[in-house]
């Protein structure tokens, strides 16, 4: 260092958050006594404008060249103070924060001990700040395009917003059609507008938008690179149908030798489809797909004399020679909108879902009441003996939600309302039906929810507070065994149909996305946002954003709102055209690096690679950090035997004096 360090130390009261437990005056006095400290002050809110002004004025007045702020965790306000330093011409990395709130006042009760600890933390920060080096962050160009994974309502909305803003969007959907779960729904609570009616136009928009490249029946295979410059590899699965020729007439499916033999996934298995199929009438793209696991020709190599679909197709669109296709492209941002699975009630055997055909899930009920469903909207079920129109119907709430025994502690947020809606629809279609809802609590928290809940109760839906213990068969009736906990009465009520209001779960294939994008999961196993309140659509991976139920259960309005939020966030790097790269990243000392590659395999962000350099005439391999990918976590440094890779601002020579100061050694 050329100039002598001149330190300013600023101790924050954080209102009473810190000041109530830590004697800030004493800490200030102590700080003043530390070596190289020119000025030490305390103030009620350092992060406020006047607080920042204190620092800025001191820098100007006293010529400070290093600043220590003793306040909260650097997570929130390090950028704030860095900016303050920068504004008065000091390198923003000449800042060190001592966390005397989360690591001090908030976790201690004893004022004396908390004050002593705050002093130590300040001393450690002072010890380190003197050794910090000036750093400069760089900017790199961002690719003006986005990838949206999943084309349910969240993905469609995010894609449309980004595309409308004028950027290219690659919308990747795993299944043959876009639409996702919302396409399966009948009416939507609490307004009872038809799900398909409001979704279908968006599906078509997404497919026709000049800025959206729809990659349906495709899966993301690899994502490399970093924010602004992701390299994406997508596998377009073979449909065995030439989409440029297919007219969607459906002759093939009618003629298929295995016509209507397989449970239709879209109808939750209630309806049947052929080996060549369109998932549902409004599917987008409206192109048929051959199921490679079912098709006779694809599984056995022959299908009679010749495949019937080929004979039936007037457009000659069937192409059994079709192969998976790999598409690669670059994007600047990624929106993950992979959605959810519904809870599998087989995990609660006491409800007899796998035993009784008239115990169904809420999603099955959606298909049953839907006019486009397998029954054309007639509510008919098989009670084990015959097809009946059920007259006595029960709904059981919280199946697979708020239930530690199945590992789902969370509330799924939609079941109360979809149950109320379905109960209403049943009353609408079968006016003489009696409908009972067994619930733990009714959570009608959204706009118009409570009103809707009141409305269905006025319609004669009976709500019984109790969590059923068992469902069994008596005669041709289903018996729900439950205690009405409001009257403390044990009940054995008989029904023709029981609907399990199954909750929402993370998708079973989430692991793949986690590995692809290095996402984290919260304890409920949904994808983890960067901050629960302030960064709800961001992830720990820069440039990767979350939309919809992949982040946690949500209804449609919340999903759309979050999708729009994710789209807006994704647009930031696209619109700016540049992304800033943090300067506090790992750096390799090439002279001593022995190229063992431990750091390469340790790095959680694949930010390090081995490159060949010339060392005095010899070609040797050394590690090199991709600064855009590095998060400065320091894992590499811990694994390096020759200490040849170290995060800037966290070099050994910078943190060892800090640690020594923590131990009371100056």
């Amino acid at each position: 260092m050329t100039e002598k360090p001149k330190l300013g130390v600023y101790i924050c009261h954080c209102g009473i958050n810190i000041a109530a437990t830590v004697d800030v005056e004493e800490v200030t006095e102590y700080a003043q006594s530390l070596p190289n400290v020119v000025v030490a002050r305390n103030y009620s809110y350092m992060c406020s404008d006047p607080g920042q002004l204190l620092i800025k004025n001191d820098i100007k007045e006293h010529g400070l060249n290093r600043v220590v702020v003793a306040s909260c965790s650097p997570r929130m306000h390090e950028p704030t103070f860095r900016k303050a330093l920068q504004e008065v011409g000091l390198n923003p990395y000449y800042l060190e924060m001592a966390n005397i709130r989360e690591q001090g006042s908030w976790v201690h009760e004893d004022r004396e001990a908390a004050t002593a600890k705050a002093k130590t933390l300040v001393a450690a920060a002072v010890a380190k700040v003197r050794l910090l080096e000036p750093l400069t962050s760089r900017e790199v160009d961002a690719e003006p395009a986005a990838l949206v994974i999943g084309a349910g309502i969240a993905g469609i909305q995010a894609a449309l917003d980004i595309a409308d803003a004028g950027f290219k969007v690659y919308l990747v959907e795993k299944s043959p059609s876009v639409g996702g779960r919302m396409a399966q729904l009948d009416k939507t609570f609490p307004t009872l507008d038809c799900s398909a009616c409001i979704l279908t136009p968006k599906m078509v928009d997404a497919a026709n938008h000049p800025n959206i490249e729809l990659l349906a029946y495709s899966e993301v295979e690899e994502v490399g690179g970093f924010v602004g410059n992701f390299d994406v590899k997508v596998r377009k699965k073979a449909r065995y149908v030439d989409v440029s020729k297919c007219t969607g007439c459906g002759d093939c499916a009618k003629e298929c030798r295995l016509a209507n033999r397989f449970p239709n996934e879209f109808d939750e298995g209630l309806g049947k489809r052929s080996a060549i199929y369109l998932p549902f009438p409004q599917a987008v793209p409206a192109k048929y797909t051959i199921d490679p696991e079912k098709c006779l020709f694809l599984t056995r190599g022959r299908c009679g004399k010749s495949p019937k679909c080929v004979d039936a197709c007037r457009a000659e669109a069937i192409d059994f020679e079709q192969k998976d296709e790999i598409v690669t492209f670059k994007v600047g941002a990624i929106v993950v909108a992979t959605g959810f699975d519904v809870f599998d009630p087989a995990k609660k055997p006491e409800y007899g879902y796998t035993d009784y055909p008239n115990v169904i899930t809420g999603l099955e009920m959606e298909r049953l009441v839907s006019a486009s469903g397998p029954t054309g909207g007639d509510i008919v079920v098989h009670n084990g003996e015959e097809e009946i129109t059920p007259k006595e119907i029960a709904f059981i709430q919280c199946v697979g939600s708020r239930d530690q025994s199945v590992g789902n502690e969370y509330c799924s947020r939609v079941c109360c309302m979809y149950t109320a809606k379905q109960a209403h629809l049943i009353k609408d279609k079968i006016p003489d039906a009696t409908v009972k809802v067994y619930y733990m609590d009714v959570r009608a928290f959204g706009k118009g929810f409570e009103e809707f809940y009141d409305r269905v109760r006025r319609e004669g839906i009976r709500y019984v507070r109790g969590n059923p213990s068992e469902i069994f068969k008596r005669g041709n009736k289903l018996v729900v065994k439950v205690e009405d906990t409001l009257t403390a009465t044990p009940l054995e009520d008989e029904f023709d149909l029981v609907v399990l209001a199954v909750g929402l779960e993370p998708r079973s294939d989430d692991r793949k996305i986690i590995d692809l994008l290095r996402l984290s999961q919260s304890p409920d196993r949904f994808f983890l946002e960067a901050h629960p309140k302030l960064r709800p659509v961001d992830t720990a991976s820069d440039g990767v954003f979350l939309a919809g139920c992949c982040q946690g259960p949500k209804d449609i309005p919340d999903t759309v709102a979050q999708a729009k939020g994710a789209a807006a966030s994704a647009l930031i790097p696209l619109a700016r055209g540049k992304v800033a790269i943090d300067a506090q990243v790992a750096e390799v000392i090439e002279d001593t690096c022995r190229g063992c590659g431990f750091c390469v395999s340790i790095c959680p962000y694949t930010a390090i690679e081995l490159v060949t350099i010339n060392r005095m005439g010899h070609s040797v391999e050394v590690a090199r950090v991709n600064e855009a990918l590095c998060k400065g976590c320091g894992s590499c440094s811990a694994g390096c035997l020759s200490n040849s890779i170290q995060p800037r601002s966290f070099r050994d020579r910078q943190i060892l004096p800090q640690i020594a100061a923590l131990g009371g050694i100056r």
Partner: protein
Amino acid sequence: MDLDKLRKTAAEIVSRDDVKYLLGWRRGTFGYRVAPYFIEDAAGVDELIFSPLCISNLATYLTLVEKLPVPRGQEPDQRKVALLVKGCDSRAVAQLLVEKGIKREEVVVIGLPCPGMVDRELLAEKYPETEAAAEVKWDGEDFLLVGEGGETAIPRTEVLAEKCRLCRHPNPVISDLTIGEPVEPWATADDSGVAEIEAKETAERWAYWEEQFSKCIRCYSCRNACPLCYCEDCILDRLDPTWVNRAVNFSENTAFHLARAFHLAGRCIECGECERVCPAGIPLGKLNRKLARTVREEYGFEPGLDPEAEPFQAGYKPDDPEEFIL
């Protein structure tokens, strides 16, 4: 051991255009001593030997030989280095490959199944009178001392080196060609030669190591002889920050030895060179074998067996039970 075959093969290999030299052993300057031998042409193979005294691990020289600056306009010598390896030595080669310390195409590995080596100091102590002239040979499991006064049979257990008594991999795990028949491992599954120390009370153990580490003169022979200590710039030599002070005292010596042991955890292939070369007689083999065993038992990992293996504890797994990184 068929020495003629070994010498013939060695001659063939050093004659190859793509081989710089062959690393082997020859008789040392005195007594039972054996010296490493760099053979650069076929004529040199006459002195090449492989006997129960060839205990040193030649893999060390793969990284120890300094890469001199190449004068401008010249190309670096890209020729291969051929070397003779016993079971333990071959593990060092495999581990070096894992760590990219060497490249596979840079070496020709000649494997020699090893029935066990003699502890030279023990031998000299027990048979001092023949030291000046005698040779040592294998005789089945046992050893044979061949001197001017005839042959003396020595039971295996009498002079077998400790690391060989504990050896689980007497046959080379990696080689381009092997000379000699594979030997049957006498595997001692659990014995790592540290039970005695483990049985001590903590205070006793501390006293034991205090005594041992206090003997250290910080000559760094252990580090230099270790085939897997090959950082160009060892952190223990650095001054900023000074991890280990240069003062020779118990505290700094302990820091040195423990740092080295931890740097070798999951990497040490138990060749015992550190202990063998230690002029102060510190049982460093015990220290490293203890860590090697811990890694084996707790992580199910044994280094230097598969050149394609992922290095120990140098991998990131998305499902790592530790959540602190992401």
